[in-house]
C-alpha cells in the first residue's frame, strides 16, 4: 500500500530536481573542433609567436571562418547563436595551447559583442554588432587607465557632452586588441561631480581622428595578444554611439565584466589543463631512480591534486555559464569561478614546471610559457583580490 502512495511523489520529485551534467552533441562537436584547431594549427607556431610577440593574424582569420569570433551573437546579427557553455568549452581547448589567441577571442566575444547585443540600440547593432558577429571586425574594451585599474570608478578620461557629439580626451591603459581590434567600447567620465554615476560607455571606431596607440607592451606572457595604451585627443564621438542612458557607463562595464570573467576563468582552466596534460605525459616517459616519475608517489600525488583542482574549476565555470544561459544571476559565481580558476592555474602550472624539472624551465616544453600565461589571469578583468571583494560583499549583504 505505502509504495503505491510514495511512488508518484517520488516521480514528481525527479522532475522537479532534474540535474544534468551531460553535454549535448553540439557541445561535444564544438569542443572537438576547438581542440582540433588548437592541437593541429595553434601548436605549430605558438612558441615562435610567443618569442616574437606577433599578433596571430592567420589564426584570427581561420578562427573567424570557423565561426568562433561572434559565436554567442544571435544569428539575427550574423553570429553563431551559441550558448555560454559552448564558449567555455572552446576557450578551454584553445587556451590549452595558446591563451594569447584565446584572449583576443574572449575580449571580443564576452565583453564587446555581449555588451552591444545586450544594451545597444537596433541602429548600433546594425552598424557595429553585425560586423563583429561575423568576426569581420574585432572588438576591444577600454576601461583601465594608468591611474584607474582595480578602482575603475575614478575615470580620468573625459567625454565632454557637446550636443550632437561627445569629445573624448584621456589615456586608456593595457588595452587588449587595441591594434587587432577595430571597434572600441570606451568608458569615460561625463559628469565628474556625479562620481561613477556620471560615467558613460561609447562605441568608437578605431579610425576616429584623435586616437593614437602607444607601442605594443612587451609582456611576460600572452605575448602575441596585442596590448597597448590608447590616447584620445579631441576625438569626436557621435551622440548616438553612447550605450544606454546618460550615466549608465559604469554599470555597463561591471555587467560586461561579470560575463567576461567566465571567459577568463575558462582561459585559466585551459592553461592549467594544458600544463597538466603535459605533466601527465611526461611523468609516464621520464625515469628517475630506475622508475617512471609517475611511479614515484610524490609525483603521482601532485598529479592527483592537479586533476582535482582542474575538475573543480571546470565545474564552477560551467555552473556560472549555465546560470548565465538560463537567465539566473551569475555575477558572484563568475567572480568565484575566475578567482578559483586563476589561482589554481598558477598553482597547477607551477607544479607542472616542477614535474618536468629542468625541461620544464625551457621554452621547448611549453609549461614555462603556460605558467607565465597563468599569471595574467589573476590580474586582468579584476585581480584575484578584487574578486574576493565582489564575493564577500555579496555574502555580507544584509
Amino acid at each position, binding site marked *: 500500500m505505502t509504495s503505491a502512495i510514495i511512488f508518484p511523489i517520488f516521480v514528481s520529485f525527479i522532475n522537479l530536481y532534474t540535474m544534468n551534467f551531460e553535454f549535448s552533441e553540439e557541445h561535444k*562537436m564544438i569542443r572537438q*573542433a576547438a581542440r582540433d584547431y588548437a592541437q593541429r594549427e595553434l601548436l605549430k607556431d605558438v612558441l615562435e609567436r610567443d618569442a616574437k610577440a606577433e599578433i596571430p593574424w592567420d589564426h584570427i582569420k581561420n578562427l573567424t571562418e*570557423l*565561426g568562433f569570433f561572434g*559565436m554567442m551573437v544571435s544569428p539575427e546579427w550574423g553570429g*553563431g547563436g*551559441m550558448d555560454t557553455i559552448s564558449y567555455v568549452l572552446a576557450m578551454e581547448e584553445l587556451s590549452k595551447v595558446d591563451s594569447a589567441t584565446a584572449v583576443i577571442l574572449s575580449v571580443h566575444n564576452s565583453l564587446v559583442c555581449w555588451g552591444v547585443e545586450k544594451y545597444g540600440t537596433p541602429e548600433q547593432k546594425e552598424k557595429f554588432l553585425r560586423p563583429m558577429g561575423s568576426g569581420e571586425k574585432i572588438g576591444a574594451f577600454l576601461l583601465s587607465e594608468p591611474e584607474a585599474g582595480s578602482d575603475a570608478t575614478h575615470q580620468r578620461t573625459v567625454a565632454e557632452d557637446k550636443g550632437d557629439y561627445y569629445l573624448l580626451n584621456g589615456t586608456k591603459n593595457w588595452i587588449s586588441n587595441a591594434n587587432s581590434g577595430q571597434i572600441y567600447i570606451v568608458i569615460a567620465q561625463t559628469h565628474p561631480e556625479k562620481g561613477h554615476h556620471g560615467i558613460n560607455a561609447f562605441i568608437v571606431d578605431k579610425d576616429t581622428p584623435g586616437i593614437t596607440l602607444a607601442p605594443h607592451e612587451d609582456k611576460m606572457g600572452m605575448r602575441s595578444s596585442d596590448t597597448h595604451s590608447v590616447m584620445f585627443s579631441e576625438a569626436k564621438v557621435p551622440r548616438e554611439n553612447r550605450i544606454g542612458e546618460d550615466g549608465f557607463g559604469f554599470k555597463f562595464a561591471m555587467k560586461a565584466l561579470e560575463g567576461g570573467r567566465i571567459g577568463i576563468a575558462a582561459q585559466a582552466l585551459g592553461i592549467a589543463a594544458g600544463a597538466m596534460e603535459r605533466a601527465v605525459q611526461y611523468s609516464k*616517459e*621520464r625515469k628517475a631512480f630506475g622508475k617512471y616519475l609517475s611511479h614515484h608517489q610524490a609525483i603521482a600525488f601532485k598529479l592527483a591534486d592537479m586533476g582535482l583542482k582542474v575538475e573543480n574549476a571546470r565545474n564552477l565555470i560551467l555552473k556560472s555559464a549555465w546560470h548565465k544561459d538560463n537567465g539566473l544571476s551569475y555575477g558572484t559565481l563568475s567572480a568565484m569561478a575566475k578567482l578559483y580558476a586563476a589561482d589554481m592555474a598558477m598553482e597547477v602550472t607551477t607544479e607542472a614546471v616542477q614535474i618536468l624539472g629542468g625541461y620544464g624551465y625551457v621554452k*621547448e616544453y611549453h609549461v614555462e610559457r603556460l605558467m607565465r600565461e597563468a599569471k595574467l589571469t589573476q590580474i586582468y578583468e579584476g585581480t584575484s583580490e578584487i574578486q574576493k571583494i565582489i564575493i564577500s560583499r555579496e555574502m555580507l549583504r544584509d
Partner: protein
Amino acid sequence: MKILVCISNVPDTTTKIRFTDDDTRFDTASVQWIINPWDELALTRALELKEGSGGSIEKVTVVNVGPKESEPTIRKALAIGADDAVRIDAEPLDAHVVAGELAGHIRNNPYDIVLCGIDSSDYNGSLVGGMLAELLDLPSVSSVSKLNIENDEITINREIDGGSEILSTETPFVAIVQKGIALEPRIPSMRGIMMARKKPLNVVEAAGAEPLTEFVRFELPPPKAACKMVDEENIRELVALLHNEAKVL
C-alpha cells in the same frame, strides 16, 4: 554529379581496447566514437571537389550502415558539410553485411562516385570497398591518393610499389581512398554544427545482408616498447633524450 561517401563509426584512436563475452566481443562501454579517419578525409575531398566544381557536383551524401547509436557520428559528417545522410539500420556485423547493405541502397539510388576509406580503424579488414564494387558490378580503383575532376575529366592517382599510377575513369565508379586524398580532415564550423540537425538524415530499412564471419576470439597484441618521436629539427631534444634517458651518449 552526385558523390556518396561511405562512413563508418569507429572508436577514437586513443580508446583503451577491452573485450567482453569471453573475448569474443569488443567492449563498447565508455568509448568515444568518431568518423573513421580515412572516411573523414574522403568526405573532405568530396566537399573540396564540390566547392570547386562550379555547380556540376550537386550533392555530397554520406551513408553509414549502423544502429541509431552511430547518428552522432553521422551528424558530425553533416556538420563538416555533407548535404544529407543515409543511415541503413543494421548492425555492421562484418564487411559482407556492410557492403551488402550499401550495395542494396546504391542500386536503388545511383551515385556517380562512391568513396570508401581503404580500411576502418577498428577491424582493419580492407574489404568493404572492393566487395561493394563487385556486388554493384562497378569499376573500382584501390589505394587512391588523389582524385581530381576537371571539365568532367576524372584523374586518379593510385599508390603502387615504389611510385604512383595515374588513371582516368568514367563514372560511375568506386574509389577506395587512402593517405593523400585530402591533406587534413576538415574542422566543422560553428555554423555547420548548428545546421547539422536541420539537414536530412534518412533512415532506411536494412535489406537483410548476412554476415559471413564468426568471431572466435579477440586478443590484444603484446605491448609495444615505448617509442618517442622527436621533431626532425629538434636535434637538441634528441641529444638530450639519448643522453638522459637512453643513456647511450
